[in-house]
């Protein structure tokens, strides 16, 4: 009965689904490849520089902050570079590198590591960093150097479709806007590319349909009720990346199914209110962050009964 090799004794369950934080983060990065490629196609070196700057800054920030807090770096989970990529995609190609770097440092350092690291953050780090730079812009006005001139590209100076929508300008056709149309932040250049990435994440089981569907549906209905063109609303600004990649963030969205629906609907309502009644800038980012704050309340209100709980009283 003598056999070679020793036995390993652990506890049940002995099987594990091949989904880990790093594989999930890797999949989200894969999901962002189409939109990254479209923005590089439009903005060439500007997009490449911005993405590289933010990803490198994100990694460095994580290493430094964790070191200061006496923890080992967790670069292997991929969440830092992913956040860096997200931050980059939320900026216009001509943004000052200083602004982009500060936004990334705030995203990783403040919104993630200072509050306890991945899993403990209440706000979506990338959106937090992006919005912080809007609110803090006056402080940094002096040091926000202009982006280096990386060549003359028409697309770079185009107004975003959202600004065109707000300004009552003549809009491009639906199809053109859906496929790819430059202007605004990197992530605003192609709803189709974002949709491909979102479908990939859905197929891989990382995101649930409830948040994107309720959020996009609400925006369309609200826009229609307010006499606006729902399709332009769906295709412009940060709505697509917000609905598919930001509001679906595991850590900062409600955990229950009904909570996810409420969360999506509420964000949708806020987006349209901001877009229609307020200066239409970063409405999606603000809406998601506002609702991030309500997640504990939503989770509590939508807590479901246990299987063994008496169903009738």
């Amino acid at each position, binding site marked *: 009965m003598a056999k070679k090799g020793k*036995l390993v004794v652990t506890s049940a369950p002995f*099987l594990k689904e091949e989904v880990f934080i790093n594989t999930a983060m890797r999949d989200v990065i894969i999901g962002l490849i189409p939109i990254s490629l479209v923005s590089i196609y439009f903005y060439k070196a500007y997009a490449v520089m911005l993405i590289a700057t933010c990803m490198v800054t994100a990694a460095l920030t994580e290493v430094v902050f964790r070191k200061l807090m006496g923890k080992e770096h967790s670069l292997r989970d991929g969440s830092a570079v992913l956040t860096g990529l997200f931050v980059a995609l939320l900026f216009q190609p001509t943004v000052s590198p200083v602004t982009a770097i500060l936004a990334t440092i705030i995203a990783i350092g403040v919104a993630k590591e200072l509050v306890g690291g*991945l*899993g403990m953050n209440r706000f979506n780090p990338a959106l937090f960093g992006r919005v912080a730079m809007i609110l803090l812009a006056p402080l940094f006005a002096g040091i926000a150097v202009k982006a280096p001139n990386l060549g003359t590209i028409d697309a770079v100076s185009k107004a975003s479709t959202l600004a065109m929508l707000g300004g009552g300008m003549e809009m491009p056709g639906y199809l053109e806007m859906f496929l790819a149309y430059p202007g605004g932040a990197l992530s605003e250049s192609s709803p189709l590319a974002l949709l491909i990435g979102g479908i990939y994440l859905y197929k891989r089981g990382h995101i649930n349909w409830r948040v994107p569907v309720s959020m996009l549906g609400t925006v369309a209905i609200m826009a229609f009720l307010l006499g606006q063109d729902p399709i332009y609303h769906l295709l412009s600004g940060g709505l697509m990346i917000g609905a598919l990649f930001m509001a679906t963030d*595991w850590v900062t969205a409600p955990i229950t199914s009904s909570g996810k629906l409420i969360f999506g609907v509420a964000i949708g309502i806020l987006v349209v209110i901001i877009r229609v009644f307020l200066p239409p800038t970063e409405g999606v980012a603000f809406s998601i962050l506002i609702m991030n704050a309500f997640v504990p309340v939503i989770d509590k209100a939508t807590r479901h009964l246990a*299987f*063994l709980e*008496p169903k009738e009283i």
Partner: protein
Amino acid sequence: MAVKSFKGGANVPHFKSFTDDKEIEKMPTPDRVVIPMHQSFGDPCEPLVKVGDRVEVGQKIGDSSEFFSAPIHSSVNGVVEEIEVLPYCTGEDAKSIIIRVEGEDQEFKPTIKRNPEDMTREEIIEAIHQAGIVGMGGASFPTHINVNTKEPVEYLVLNGAECEPFLTCDHRTMVERADELVAGARILSSVIGARKCLIGIEVNKPDAIEALEERTKDDDLFEIVPLAVKYPQGFKSIMIKSTTGKDVRRGARSAEVGCIVRNVGTTVAVYEAVVYGKPLIERVVTVSGPTIPKPGNFMIKIGTPVGHIFDHCGVTDFNDATVILGGPMTGRAQHSMKAPIIKNSTGALLLPSEIVRASEPHENCVRCGKCVARCPMRLYPNQLSMLAEVEDYEGLEAWNVMDCMECGICVYSCPSNRPILEFIRHAKPIIKKMELARRGN
């Protein structure tokens, strides 16, 4: 064919193709068997034999005067070599009778043949009791207690879900022993006064569904219920919900909701006990794993050490693999090759380290929500693991930790590889103590 299902759960890879077409074979008798005196829910048995005694196949060698217990029998002809306290597959220690096998013929020879229709209810229950029948799907609750209901129970639910990966022993039993299974179900139905016998089978076993449809189509007592292939379909309260639609309330016994659930292997054992007086001395065990040269379904005598089984199946090298008795989601990893098969051992698995879940390292919960969506008991495993981490036992109780039936789907799903179940297993006895203390006041 309407396929029934339940809320939660997940598709876990089956790994059943290693053995699902392998006919049940007899495993040769080992040189020695080790028979632990604690093989059922409840109290252990005391040995009825002493060192040096000669024992026969089917002879009762352990019994208890306590209510929650079932007698234990010798699975071989031989001589009692030793009686000592040994660790066995549950991880606990039990007095164990070690029998040296003697003689070529090790088969149980029935001396009687009874017709269950001529027997009273009491005689049948006594036959089940004397044969030491316990739930063979894992719970090992003594069957004679389970079926001795005060009031008639509406449904007999036969559990043929076999939702655990790798295991095919129930599948093969349904295909190869369908007649005995149906006869056993008739006996159990008459004992509990069931109006209906529902046989729940996951649809990945079409040959089992067909075999049982074939034998029950003219009998109104039976209904085959095809079930979605989803883990943990075969857990008792889930089974009741899927097959009958009834909710099981916290603390309610299944008889109180009008259901008795029995495993298909147990049902065949009941048939043999009642008709032939055959005690539970052997069972079908799935021996499987991706690296086993000759996997299969084997009729194995209780007390056979796993080392003997893997020898027979051609295993020569363990290579840091994990040996599991039971299924890979709820079974127990074994320390020793001497660990014996007991009455509820559904499988003897050898899993290579590549597919065994690494217990380290784990991360913070990232709130992906998979455990919440998949928990069949509709709990919040993420919350439970975090409360357990900070030892907040009141919080754990408020989040219904005691409902957890430890199916393991949360741990299987967790991207942070959190040892949710270890936390819960650690907390449960502490909360039980708190409950008892409260009741004491």
